[in-house]
């Protein structure tokens, strides 16, 4: 999709002062990296974006902390190598999400190949301790388990990374219409699941 659409949409939306100044700081740091290969400026960019990026990747990797940190690190390394190609058509964080998504996809492909070659069963995803989950969060997580990868990715980008549909399409590398369809399908499935849990709870209630 044309990136100019992204910036056009972004400029149409009301941007808070703090978001705008964050973008200005990012732009200044990126310029320093582009002009002088300035590692200190890049370190500042990493510090500013590491928390959100790592949180996003953790969600993508179903909470596998070590793996998600590896993916996040690879993302920043690729950003460093390709920063001259970044033309500010999207937000820097959106660009990072796009790289992270691609790194994760190639990681998944590698894993899939290893599994096919070795026929080892995958390890079950780690389940966080029950106490850390509120009822709502647990239900949501379970409902998200019903989604296929495309639907899950669309929900993650639009809700958890707080991206517009346009930006999500850019990150996922798919048409805007597909993002919207995936969101609709995902929400339908989740509603059905959540409805079933509610019925279950009501049935179990004394």
């Amino acid at each position, binding site marked *: 999709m044309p990136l100019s659409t992204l910036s056009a949409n972004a400029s149409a939306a009301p941007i808070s002062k703090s978001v705008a100044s964050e973008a200005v700081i990012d732009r200044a740091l990126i310029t320093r990296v582009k002009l002088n290969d300035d590692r200190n400026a890049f370190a500042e960019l*990493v510090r500013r974006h*590491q928390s959100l990026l790592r*949180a996003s990747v953790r969600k993508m990797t179903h909470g596998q902390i070590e793996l998600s940190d590896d993916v996040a*690190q690879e993302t920043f*390394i690729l950003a460093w190598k390709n920063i001259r190609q970044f033309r500010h058509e999207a937000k820097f964080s959106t660009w990072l999400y796009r790289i992270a998504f691609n790194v994760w996809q190639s990681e998944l492909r590698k894993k899939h190949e290893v599994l096919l070659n070795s026929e080892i069963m995958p390890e079950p995803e780690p389940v966080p301790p029950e106490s850390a989950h509120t009822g709502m969060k647990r239900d949501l997580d379970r409902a998200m388990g019903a989604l296929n990868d495309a639907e899950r990715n669309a929900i993650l980008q639009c809700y*958890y990374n707080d991206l517009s549909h346009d930006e999500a399409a850019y990150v996922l590398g798919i048409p805007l219409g597909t993002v919207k369809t995936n969101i609709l399908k995902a*929400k339908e499935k989740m509603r059905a699941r959540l409805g079933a849990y509610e019925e279950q709870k009501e049935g179990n209630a004394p």
Partner: protein
Amino acid sequence: MNMIRDPLDEMLKADAETHRDQYINDAGFTLRTLNALPAPRTSYRVSRAVSICVPFGLALLAALFVTLFAGGKNFFIDVTMDLATETVTRDVVALAMVAVALFVVVFANIVND
């Protein structure tokens, strides 16, 4: 405006907000990432002035060679004959200089990109 309330949408937004608000401590992540960055590129960057002056200078010299030594003969036919017989003449040297000038222009543009 009459907005239809969507409980799932609200649940997702609330959960996503909690998710984003959880700050993940750096805990050495930035340092590890910086240490893993590739070494700085050896800079072969050619300055704008050099990338313009060198090819122009070479082209001028080549033109001077041709004007002074070709003696009104057909330069390109002469050079082709010289190259065919593997003879190094002034005309061949002039052509080589033009070729070098073109190479420098292309190389400078690639490096400066």
